[in-house]
């Protein structure tokens, strides 16, 4: 029974399930981008519901930059084992060979090579005609104009002026050879909706979202966790233990922690209600300049 859900969460859940089934019914070779974070966890949970008693009729794809938190990778492997799903992991081989890393090459170069290019490689290699992503419209301004079914050219480009109108729940799923669609079933969810749903449905999440003593350094006003020995410390920097957690998860050198005492999902929801900063504030790559998300999206970023 789903009646324990608040009315608006029921509506969002039903909408996401409808969107996923529409993809399964219309595309030959869909794939689900799985980034291990809270939104991916909710998306995966919804996929399990949408196709029950069958398994989701698509694989999960993780773009591994090799700089994810270790706990994320452990959680990822545990999740696919628990659910019995097929996981594909791709790392940009050229980027890896060239040793591209967030310290020497700058966050935007690094993101371009290890995330955007890697994603395009994996999508091309798999020949996927549709790819699910966990993006939400409330995350960022250019996302607010994103379609649920977002059309991409054969070269993965996103032209904000050339998107199809979406009326009712009538999604136009027709594409030409080589063209693809990115699908965002969580478009209408807010960050608070995500946490309330995780709480109500008891969805497992990476423990990094919960507060604990972790070794961090303060750099440029941000708290960066030294997750492994590759962390480059500047002169005078020494990781110190602080009670922190993460509102979003990405590559550890580019994801800032926040000081928090929230040790349970209930605590997080309560904290959310009092929050005075947005979640993307902890994403260092968004702050390069205003409009930077739109630029990355045009180039094929998710």
């Amino acid at each position, binding site marked *: 029974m789903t009646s324990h859900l608040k009315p*608006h969460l029921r509506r969002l859940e039903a909408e996401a399930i409808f969107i996923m089934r529409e993809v399964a019914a219309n595309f030959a070779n869909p794939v689900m981008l799985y980034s291990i974070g809270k939104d991916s966890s909710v998306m995966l949970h919804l996929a399990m519901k949408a196709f*029950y008693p069958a398994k989701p009729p698509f694989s999960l794809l993780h773009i591994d930059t090799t700089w994810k938190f270790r706990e994320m990778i452990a959680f990822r492997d545990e999740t696919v084992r628990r659910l019995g799903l097929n996981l594909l992991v791709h790392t940009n081989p050229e980027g890896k060979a060239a040793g591209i890393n967030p310290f020497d090459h700058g966050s935007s170069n690094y993101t371009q090579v290890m995330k955007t290019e890697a994603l395009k490689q994996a999508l091309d290699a798999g020949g996927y005609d549709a790819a699910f992503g966990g993006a939400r419209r*409330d995350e960022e301004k250019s996302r607010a104009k994103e379609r649920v079914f977002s059309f991409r050219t054969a070269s993965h480009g996103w032209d904000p002026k050339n998107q199809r*109108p979406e009326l009712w729940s*009538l999604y136009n799923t027709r594409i030409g050879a080589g063209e693809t669609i990115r699908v965002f079933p969580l478009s*209408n969810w807010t960050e608070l909706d995500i946490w309330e749903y995780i709480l109500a449905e008891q969805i497992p999440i990476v423990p990094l979202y919960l507060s604990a003593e972790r070794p961090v350094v303060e750099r440029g006003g941000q708290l960066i966790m030294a997750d492994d020995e590759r962390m480059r410390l500047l002169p005078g920097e020494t990781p110190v233990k602080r009670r922190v957690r993460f509102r979003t998860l990405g590559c550890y050198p580019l994801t*800032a922690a926040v000081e928090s005492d929230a040790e349970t999902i209930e605590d997080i929801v309560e904290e959310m209600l009092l929050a005075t900063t947005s979640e993307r504030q902890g994403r260092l790559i968004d702050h390069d300049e205003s409009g930077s998300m739109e630029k990355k999206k045009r180039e094929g970023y998710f």
Partner: protein
Amino acid sequence: MAEPVTLRPDSEAPARSLALGDADKSLLRFLTCGSVDDGKSTLIGRLLLDSKRLFEDQIATLEKDSKKFGTVGDDMDLALLVDGLEAEREQGITIDVAYRFFATEKRKFIVADTPGHEQYTRNMATGASTADLAVLLIDARKGILSQTRRHATIASLLGIRHVVLAINKIDLVGYDRAVFDAIVAAFDADAGHYGFATRVAIPISARYGDNVSLHSEHMPWYRGPTLIEHLENVELSSGAAATKPLRFPVQWVNRPDLTFRGYAGTLAAGTVRPGDDVVVARSGQPARIERIVTLDGDLNQASAEDAVTLTLDREIDLSRGDILVPPGARPDVSDQFAAHVIWMAEEPMLPGRPYLMKIGTRTVGAAVTELKHRVEMDTLKPLAAKTLSLNDIGFANFSLAEPIAFDPYDDVRTTGAFILIDRFTNQTVAAGMIRFGLRRATNIHRQALTIDKAARSGAKSQKPAILWFTGLSGAGKSTIANLVEQKLHLAGRHTYLLDGDNVRHGLNRDLGFTDADRVENIRRVAETAKLFVDAGLIVLASFISPFRSERQLARDLVEEGEFVEIFVDTPLAVAEARDPKGLYRKAREGKIVNFTGIDSPYEAPEKAELRLEAGSASAEDLADRVIDYLSANGFIPR
């Protein structure tokens, strides 16, 4: 540099409990619409700001952006909060529909911010399609504009029941009640056309916040609710869909193994319980609901908007696109209906042109058989029209490739709404709302005949076909077709040649050369050719037929393999130099308009069965290539 972020609740902060009082918070989806500079983006920025939905880092970005792009001096330009794409910031306009989220103690809101200028009206229809309420922004200095009427019409056509007139920039007219009253009266003069259930008018200043969330001290004469108060309290009709008869469009058939066969879908209307008798709307096949399956366990009931998986007590022919309904409350089943249509593409709508229609979970070939009228937005009057252009709204009869089940849009949105998709560009070109079914085809049943196509063509020792010659005027289509027919005739084959010019003297003498008439010309020719194919003949059709869509229409009329598209590919310069009928000269002199290749496009075939490069060989040789193709592919004996 900023301090690291701390999320520890400040002990001074107001203690809000986890429950937050939103356990049963309802969701209101609304859209804002208005003309350029009426202040839509500013209003939404104001709603976000007043509902404390803005975070410190977003306010910091806003302050930075206001200095760079702002249009209101040193103040924070609230519009920059929502004008997300760089292109629109630079132009100071909103170019695409954006969705915004905020909440108050009573409700959650999803706002569709839709652009005002005319060329983006399709976005307003998009926002309206999922909205419960529309906020029409009106600049107090300008009053009701044709845009306001257009937006009210779209909101009304899309079934929005509640409308708010937000009369903005009231500060710029000195908070004058007379101005407000005059605008409301002007709107109400047209209101009968719209049929809204509620219409509430509120004088506001989005920039300064008057009557948005706080009552204005500048307008003691206004005693109504603030905008937020009204949005929190307006009664929603959601739940009404659950009281209607069941409509369950099958979305996806779930067959994990041989023991389970479920039908996944979202209820468009009504409720369903195990044991309910249902029928497949289109075929009338009965079945009984066995289980309502979800990951969280079987349900004993599901209602409108629930996404579930149903199993039935027996195996029936049921697949995606079918609708399960109660035996006693069935929808219309027909291949013809009348609908309002909003045209959303640069390419005009042409009656007779085949489009794909997506309605519910079904996709079917469809064409407009008759455009009854276009709605003139300034006067709201129906006007005679032959085509619809971008942002036009029309009322038309549709004919489908096969019968479907549907309801009038005002009864059930999901089974009464459709989009049209261009078969070649795959663009969504229109949105439509079904008003009523047309039953004129219901009592005309096809007569089954004993002698069929195979019998007729077998007697002639040939396989019937349409040889469709397409190309520019003067390309050599008729010359080659004529030679091919001579050769076939000499070989004892039975043929008929339909020629573009000849047909226009008889069957199609009432048609001209507009795009709409060209489409109808080809439709009639294709239907005629189909009859001859049924007679067992090899039909040669020689027509410029410049549009891919109509050649596809002709192809779709006959069976797979019976249509042979022959592209007579002659460069424009060569055809124009030949100019056997002096037509190019006249077109260049402007004496003929809509001439293919000059001022009307020719869409070359992408996958023609045969391409004849007419510049490179004699007509005789090219005709032989056609004969070779026919014998190689079994149309005629070797």
